[in-house]
C-alpha cells in the first residue's frame, strides 16, 4: 500500500513540530525519516500512524484519506521506540493480543491464533521464548517480539520509531541486516525513524532528511549523500569541513586560488563543504592545490587523520587518508604540504537553515 503525506502541519502549544511536510511512499518501499532530535520525525511518524492528529494537511493510504478511519481500523503496524510490550503478558500473549481483541465475528479460533502466533514467533526467531515475560528477554529479542506483535494484525503498513535506538552497537548491526532481509521477503510498505545516518543509509530504499519540522531532501541514500541539497543535509550525513569562500563567475575562490566549480551560483560569499576523505594531500604543488601545514597526525585503525592549518586563510581542515596511503611516506606534524579537494560542494553563504539546536527535546516525548 502506498502512503501519501500532504502538507501536514502539527503545532504543540506554540511549537511547530511539523511545518508543512509532503512525502510519498511507494508500495513496498522502505523509507527512513532521518534527522536530529527535535526535527519532528517521530511526530510525523505518529501522524502517519494516526496517534497524533495533524493541525493541517492529510495522510492518504492508497489514495484514501486515513484521517476518516479510527486508529483501530487503520491496520497500521507500529513498533515503539521502547517497544511498549505489555509487561504483564507473556511473549505469546503479547503477539496474540491483536487477534484476541477482534470482535467475535472476525476473531480467529483459538487454534488459528496459536498457529499464527507460533508462525510469527518463528519468523522473528523467538519461538523458544513464547512463555517468557518481556522483562526476561534481551533488548534485541524484545525488539523482535514487538515486530511480531505489530505484524500479527496483518498491517497494511509498518511504522518503526527508532527501531534500534535502545540496542547496543553489535546487536543493532545484526538486527538491521535481518530487518532488511525480512522487508525484502515480505514487501510491506515501511517507514522508520532514526537519527543515525549510517542506519538510514544501510537500511532504506529512500531517505527523507528532516530538520526543524521540514523535509530538507528526499532521495536514495547515494543521492542524498553525494548531492546534498542543503548545507544541513551535507553536515548531517557525515563529517564535513566548512570553508568560507568567494563565488565569482561560476567558480569558488579560497583566497586567490580557484578552489572548485560553483556553476549556477550568483557571485558573492559562499561556503564550500568538503568531506575529510575527499581530500588529497601531497608534498609537491599540483594543479589547483593549496598550501597548508600539518598540525597533528592521528592514526586510528584503518584511517590516518590529519589536521591541517591553511597557510593563506584562517581555519583548520580535517583530512582522512586510507592508512595505506599514509603508510609509505608518513606525514609529520609541522610539515608543509599541499591539498586539493577531489569533490566539494558550494552553497551561498546564507543558504538553508542551521541544524536544530541539540538541546531541543523531541516534542512527542514531552509529557
Amino acid at each position, binding site marked *: 500500500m502506498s502512503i501519501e503525506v500532504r502538507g501536514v502541519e502539527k503545532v504543540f502549544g506554540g511549537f511547530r513540530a511539523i511545518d508543512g511536510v509532503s512525502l510519498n511512499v511507494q508500495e513496498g518501499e522502505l523509507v527512513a525519516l532521518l534527522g536530529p532530535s527535535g526535527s519532528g520525525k517521530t511526530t510525523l511518524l505518529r501522524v502517519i*500512524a*494516526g*496517534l497524533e492528529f495533524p493541525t493541517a494537511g492529510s495522510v492518504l493510504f492508497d489514495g484514501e484519506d486515513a484521517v476518516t478511519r479510527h*486508529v*483501530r*481500523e*487503520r491496520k*497500521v*503496524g*507500529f513498533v*515503539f521506540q*521502547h517497544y*511498549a*510490550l*505489555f*509487561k*504483564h*503478558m507473556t511473549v505469546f500473549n503479547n503477539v496474540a*493480543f*491483536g487477534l484476541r*481483541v*477482534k470482535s467475535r465475528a472476525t476473531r480467529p479460533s483459538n487454534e488459528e491464533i496459536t498457529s499464527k502466533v507460533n508462525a510469527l514467533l518463528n519468523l522473528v526467531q523467538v519461538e523458544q521464548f513464547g512463555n517468557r515475560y518481556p522483562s526476561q528477554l534481551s533488548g534485541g529479542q524484545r525488539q523482535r517480539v514487538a515486530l511480531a*506483535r*505489530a505484524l*500479527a*494484525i496483518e498491517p497494511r503498513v509498518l511504522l518503526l520509531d527508532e527501531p534500534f535506538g535502545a540496542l547496543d552497537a553489535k546487536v543493532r548491526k545484526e538486527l538491521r541486516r535481518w530487518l532488511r532481509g525480512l522487508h525484502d521477503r515480505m514487501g510491506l510498505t515501511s517507514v522508520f525513524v532514526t537519527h543515525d545516518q549510517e542506519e538510514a543509509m544501510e537500511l532504506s530504499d529512500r531517505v527523507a532528511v528532516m530538520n526543524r519540522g521540514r523535509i530538507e531532501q528526499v532521495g536514495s541514500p547515494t543521492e542524498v549523500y553525494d548531492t546534498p541539497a542543503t548545507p544541513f543535509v551535507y553536515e548531517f550525513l557525515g563529517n564535513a569541513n566548512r570553508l568560507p569562500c568567494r563565488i565569482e563567475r561560476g567558480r569558488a575562490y579560497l583566497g586567490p586560488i580557484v578552489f572548485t566549480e560553483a556553476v549556477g551560483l550568483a557571485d558573492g560569499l559562499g561556503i564550500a563543504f568538503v568531506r575529510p576523505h575527499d581530500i588529497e594531500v601531497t608534498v609537491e604543488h599540483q594543479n589547483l592545490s593549496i598550501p597548508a601545514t600539518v598540525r597533528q597526525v592521528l592514526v586510528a585503525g584503518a584511517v590516518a587523520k590529519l589536521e591541517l592549518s591553511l597557510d593563506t586563510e584562517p581555519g583548520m581542515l580535517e583530512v582522512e587518508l586510507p592508512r595505506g596511503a599514509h603508510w609509505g611516506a608518513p606525514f609529520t606534524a609541522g610539515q608543509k604540504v599541499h591539498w586539493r579537494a577531489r569533490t566539494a560542494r558550494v552553497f551561498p553563504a546564507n543558504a538553508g537553515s542551521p541544524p536544530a539546536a541539540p538541546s531541543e527535546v523531541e516534542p512527542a516525548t514531552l*509529557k
Partner: protein
Amino acid sequence: MTKTSSVMGPPPPALTTTTEPPAVRRALILGAVAFVALFLVMPLAVVLAEAFRRGVGAYFDAITEPYTLAAVGLTLTAAAIAVPLNVIFGLTAAWAIAKFEFAGKSLLITLIDLPFSVSPVIAGLIYVLMFGAQGWVGPWLIEHDFRIIFALPGIVLATVFVTFPFVARELIPLMQDQGTDEEEAATLLGASGWQTFFRVTLPNVKWALLYGVLLCNARAMGEFGAVAVVSGHIRGVTNTMPLHIEILYNEYKFAASFAVASLLALLALVTLVAKILLEWRYGDELAGVHRMPRGGKA
C-alpha cells in the same frame, strides 16, 4: 534490604570512610529504638494487655455483645460503600490525569489531596452544615423524610471524605510514569477503549490499586472524628466500632472497650503486614513514592 550484618561486627569495608564510629552508631540506634518502643510499641502492647485483663472469656463476651456486633456490622457496611466509591473515583481521575494532557491538571491533583489536610471534625461539620436540620438542604430532606445526618448516608459521606485521596494518589503517579505507549499500542492493534483498560491498563496497576484499597479501607474502618460529628451516637443504629470504643470507655467499661479496640488494632496490623508484603514483593509496580528510590514525586 536483605543484608543482615550485625551492628556489633566490623562495618563492611566499603563503608569505613563514610560511616560513624561504632560507639556513635550504637548510641543512635539505641535512641531510635527507645523512641519507637516508647511511642509505638507501648501503646500497641497496652491495647492487648487491657483487652485480655479480665480473661479470654470476658474478651469474647465483649466482642460478641449485640451492640458490638451492630457496630462491627455498621463499620463493615460503611467501608463496603465508601471504598468502592473511592476506587471508581481513583480510577477515573487517574485515567483522565495520567493519560491526557489538559489545562489545570496540577490544580486538580492538589485538590484531590485536599481532604488529607482538613481536620476530621471539619469534614464532619461540613456535612452537618449541608444536610443537618439547620443546613442548606436539611429542611428539604426532612420534608421528604430522608435522613443523611445521624444516619448511614452521613457516615458514608464522612468516610468517603476522609478516605477520598487514598486510591487516586496511589494510581496517579504510577500511571503517569507508565505513560501511554502500551495503551497506544493496544489501540493500534485494534483494541477498544474498554479492552485497552481491562487488558492493559488495569493489570499494570493492580498491585498499586490493591495497595490503595488497603490503606483506604484501614482508614475507612478506623475513622473517628468525622464520623463522630455526623453519627449522633445512636447505639445499635449509628454507632461504628471506633464510636463504640469511645462509649464503652466513657462508661468505664475499659476491658470491653479495649476488646473492641483490639479488633481494630488487629486490622491495623494486618494492613501493615499486607502493605509491607506488597512493597517487598511488588515494589516496582507501586508508585515511586513510598520506600522506593525517588520517583516522579518529591
